[in-house]
Every structure is written in structure tokens, then in C-alpha cells.
């Protein structure tokens, strides 16, 4: 062993020993629970659409005529891309964590032809906007999209979580040929952790022996082309429409062999001169593997310049909003404690009659600390004790309380975020 080898070993060993021997299994449990919820949310909308709409619907939709269309771009060779005029523009849907027994049927508005997106727990919630249709080499791809409102899940604005922590959109591609139909979909994000381009990978037509890879990709502003290179070396590219591209290739996939799906597809966004604007990958499910940056810090933000006239009294009043078991408050008290109780009566009905009734009735929010952001707004840290829940309840959460109509009240956004744990979504 050389002298420098020895010095490296000694320095690294000394440095490593400065990390104390400690574990946090409870913290790990919390993270696993939260990740499970987030993944469920990210894929649930896509899955429900695929489940309820089904290949047959996609087949029919792919062949329905008579819609308003306007050509805006023509690809080379056998490619044709058209953008459809979607009535009502891009809809916004809320992406709750709710898991309901009710899955509303997907359908088509008879007057507009718009596809509808069924939401878990919330029934039909607005149309999916038509994005574009791409025809290439006998493959017809009809693309739909919606904006996703995940603000309740993301928490207060001052938490400032990166854009890849929660999806802000949803895209769906109905793909059909003369032999097969299928749907591939995925979440969209305002920014991605590893580059400006990313997407969802899917495979269709495997059972029919006519397999195709499909990538639903999101591209950065200014991208002239997005290119995907598929596992067997084929590539496909197109000009993104409003930051969205759907890329396809024929595939050699055998039914039943799941190992063949353990793959990713490299993507590259190109500028007008063919230069790379960045790279990324498309993965099955398409959701981003989030890291610690998506676990909000339990630290409260700094206090605002303005403070309540009597901070101690305000704090005492705010603390009264917490600490009481759900079932020990009347419905009127629950509603009166929310800054905007519009429609919340139904939410409490759902909570008290849903699958998690026992957990809801026995739950209790526990106040930890607060900081006044202004004379009428405070940031609070609290957690929720839930009987029969992993680790006894949630980890610390940050929220807001607001001074409304002469008293301090819980923010509707926080309540809506919390009730998602019990599979209930706010209107």
C-alpha cells in the first residue's frame, strides 16, 4: 500500500466516524407511506382512464369523424399532424389521493365530442382537451390532455417544492392501427429533475402479436423536435405540440415476459438546427422518482413584518383549532373552523360514511408550533394522530391558518389535503 493510499484510508475513516450511529425507522415508515400515496395519485388518473375508457373506446374515438380540425404542421414522408380545436380549452382537474368505490363512466359529450376524464372519488370532472392527432405509417395517434391541480397536495406556496414533486398535467394517447388499439398515458410536470425532457413509456398490441412501443413525452419550450430511441434501436421524432409529443415504434415483445418492460427509452429535445437542448428518459408509469427535496422541511418560514396586535392571544386561539378528536366536535364546529366552508358539508358526510370512518372519527390533529406571516395569516406545523394508521399517524405537516370574520380558522387547502388520507376529495 502506498503512502497516499494510506492517507486516503485514514482521512476517509476519520471523516466517516463523524456520522453518529443512529437510525430512524419511524421516519422511514412515514416516507414509505407518503411515497405510496404520491405514486398512487400520480398513476391513478391515468389508470382509471385506461380502465374505464378501455381499448374499445379508444378504437372508436380514433375513428370518429366530423370534428373540427385545422392543419398546422405536416411531417415528412407518411406523417401528418393535425391540431384539433377542443371546446372549452384545457380543463383543470384536481388530483386527489382519494380512492373511492365509485368509478364514473367515461363518455363523450354528445354536443361537443369532447372526451371526459373520470376522477377517482369525484365522478366526471371536466373534459379532456383534444391536443393533436398524429398519423404516421398507418398508425393513428389521438392525443388528449388536462391540467392537474395538485395545489392541495403541494401545500402552502412558501414551501417552494420543485416542480417535479407533483404532476401538473396529464396526457393520454389513443393509438390504433388496422390491427390493434391501446392507450398510453402519463403525468406531466412543470419541471423535471434530470433534464428538460421526459415521458411515459407504454406498450400496446402485445397480445395480438403486433406490439408497439409508445412514448408520451413532454418537451421544453423552444424544442423543434423530440426524438426517442427505442430498445431495439428504432427511433421516432416529431415536432412537439404545446410541449407534448407522442412517439411510436414497432416492437418485438412477447406476451408474459415481464422482464422486457424493465427498460427506459432515451429522449432528446432538439432545437431548429438539430442541436441538443437536453436529454431525458421515458419510463413505465412516467412518474418521476422523487427525492428528499420533495419532502417538505418541517421548519416554519420566517415571521412576517406585521404581527397580530396580541400574538399570545392569537396563538392561544389558534391552538384551540387543534387537539380535539374529530368525533368530539359537532358538524357546525367543523364547518365554522374552516376559512372557506363552501361545499365542505358534503366532505364531512363522505368522511363520516366512507371506508375510513373509524380512523376519521378517532383522528386528532396535534398543534406543534406556529409563525405569524402577517397580522391575519400564520404558518402552523402540526401532525395528525390516526388510530390503526402506520406509525400512529402522520409526520409533521405545514399549513396555514387565516384570520377571517373576526376569528382564526383553518385553511380550506390544508383540510382538503388532510381528508385525502381518508379517500375523500373536496369539491
Amino acid at each position, binding site marked *: 500500500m502506498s503512502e*497516499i493510499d494510506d*492517507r*486516503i484510508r485514514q*482521512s*476517509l475513516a*476519520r*471523516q*466517516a466516524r*463523524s*456520522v*453518529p*450511529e*443512529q*437510525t*430512524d*425507522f419511524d*421516519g*422511514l415508515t412515514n*416516507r*414509505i*407511506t407518503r*411515497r*405510496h400515496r404520491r405514486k*398512487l395519485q400520480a398513476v*391513478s388518473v391515468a*389508470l382509471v382512464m*385506461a*380502465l374505464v375508457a378501455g381499448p374499445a373506446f379508444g378504437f372508436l374515438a380514433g375513428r370518429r369523424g366530423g370534428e373540427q380540425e385545422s392543419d398546422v404542421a405536416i411531417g415528412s414522408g407518411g406523417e401528418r399532424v393535425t391540431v384539433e380545436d377542443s371546446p372549452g380549452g384545457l380543463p383543470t382537474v384536481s388530483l386527489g389521493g382519494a*380512492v373511492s368505490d365509485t368509478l364514473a363512466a367515461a363518455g363523450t359529450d354528445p354536443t361537443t365530442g369532447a372526451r371526459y376524464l373520470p376522477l*377517482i372519488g369525484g365522478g366526471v370532472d371536466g373534459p379532456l382537451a383534444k391536443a393533436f392527432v398524429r398519423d404516421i405509417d398507418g398508425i393513428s395517434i389521438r392525443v388528449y390532455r388536462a391540467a392537474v391541480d395538485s395545489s392541495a397536495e403541494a401545500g402552502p406556496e412558501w414551501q*417552494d417544492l420543485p416542480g417535479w414533486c407533483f404532476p401538473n398535467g396529464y396526457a393520454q394517447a389513443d393509438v390504433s392501427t388496422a390491427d390493434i388499439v*391501446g392507450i398510453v398515458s*402519463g403525468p406531466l410536470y412543470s*419541471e423535471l*429533475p*434530470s433534464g428538460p425532457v421526459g415521458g*411515459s*413509456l*407504454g*406498450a*400496446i398490441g*402485445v397480445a395480438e402479436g403486433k406490439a408497439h412501443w409508445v412514448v408520451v413525452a413532454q418537451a421544453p419550450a423552444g424544442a423543434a423536435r423530440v426524438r426517442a430511441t427505442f430498445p431495439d434501436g428504432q427511433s421516432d421524432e416529431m415536432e412537439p405540440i404545446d410541449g407534448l409529443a407522442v412517439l411510436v415504434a414497432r416492437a418485438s415483445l412477447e*406476451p408474459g415476459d415481464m422482464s422486457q*418492460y424493465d427498460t427506459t427509452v432515451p429522449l432528446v429535445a432538439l432545437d431548429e438546427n438539430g442541436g441538443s437542448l437536453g436529454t431525458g428518459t421515458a419510463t*413505465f*408509469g*412516467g412518474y418521476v*422518482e422523487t*427525492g*428528499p*427535496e420533495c*419532502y417538505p422541511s418541517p421548519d416554519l418560514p420566517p415571521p412576517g413584518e406585521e404581527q397580530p396586535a396580541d400574538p399570545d392571544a392569537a396563538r392561544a386561539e389558534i391552538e384551540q383549532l387543534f387537539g380535539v378528536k374529530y368525533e368530539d366536535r359537532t358538524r357546525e364546529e367543523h364547518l365554522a373552523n374552516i376559512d372557506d366552508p363552501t361545499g365542505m358539508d358534503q366532505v364531512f358526510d363522505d368522511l363520516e360514511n366512507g371506508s*375510513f370512518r*373509524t*380512523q376519521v372519527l378517532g383522528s386528532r390533529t396535534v398543534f406543534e408550533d406556529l409563525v405569524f406571516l402577517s397580522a391575519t395569516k400564520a404558518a402552523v406545523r402540526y401532525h395528525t394522530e390516526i388510530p*390503526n*394508521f*402506520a406509525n400512529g399517524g402522520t409526520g409533521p405537516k405545514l399549513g396555514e391558518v387565516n384570520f377571517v370574520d373576526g376569528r382564526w380558522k383553518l385553511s380550506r387547502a390544508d383540510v382538503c389535503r388532510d381528508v385525502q*388520507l381518508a*379517500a375523500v376529495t373536496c369539491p
Partner: protein
Amino acid sequence: MGELVQEDGAARRQKGVQDVAPLLEVRIETTPMVVEVSKPAFADFYRATFTEMARLAFLLTGSVETAHDLVQDSFVRLHGRWDRIDEPRAYLRRTVVNACRSHYRRLSVQRRHSATARVENVDLGADEMIDAIAALPYRQRAAIVLRFWHDSSQAEIAAALGCRPGTVGSLIYRALAELRKVMP
């Protein structure tokens, strides 16, 4: 109350496959909000390896807090694949090394996108050798830490870094050359 369900490997891989989507319908309706995570083997493995991995991540990031975060997150990922991983220690080591690399990439993106991005509090101490190692490009640093602190074999380092074994030799050679240059 839905029954406890854990996604198996096949189901996870099938999420993008339209042909098997109906299998997932049942999972959606029964997926619980309570996740069972305390399988004895996993918990034992966690307690036996956490500190080692936290120290590895610390040597790669220079921050105890970040190291704990990244390692916890690596265990979260390991938990999701626990039933189908034969060598969890190797998988975990690779995940931690990748997480540390991703951490730097994310910091870079965050700084580009947000003027208020938090600045990493790196505390590498007063050891000049440690500072010199910290200044190495990430893959060289990881190779040095795995070789000289973790006593990993060339094949193990290659697996952790996702490169060929021959590349590991090159990374270590170049790292040592740099360290010899900057260290008296």
C-alpha cells in the same frame, strides 16, 4: 377499510402496459392508506446497514443531513423492491451512490430555476485530503470512497457506478493522480 396491499414487481412494470391494465383495477380499489413496512427482515437489514450507508453518503455529499435524507430515500426505494432483490446490500449501495449523484444534478437545476433555492451546507471538516477528494469529479470521488473506505472490489464499484470494471481502474488512476498533484 381496504386490505393491506403491496405492489409486486410484475404489477409495477405493467403500469404502462395496456394489455394487463385490468389487473390494476383491483389494486386501485383496494389500495390502502396504511402501508405495512415493518417486515422483520427489512427492518433488521435497515438497522444493520443504515449507519454504513449514511457514512458512505456523507463522504459523497459532505453533509450529514443530506446523507441521512438520501439514505432514507434509498431505503424507501429498496422497500418497494424488497421481495425481488437477491442482493439488497449491493442494490442499496448502488442506489445511494446514484442518489448522491442525482442530488448534485438537482441542486444544479434548482439553482437555475429558483433564486431562493437553499444553499447546501457542506461541512467537510479541516482535513485537506477530504477537501481534495471532495473536489474530484463525482465518479472519481465515488470510486475513491468505495475503494478506500468501503473496501469495495472493482466489480462492486463498477456495479455501484453503473460502468465497466475497466472504467473503475481508470477513474481511480486519474483520481489518485489528481490527489498526488494537490496533496503535498
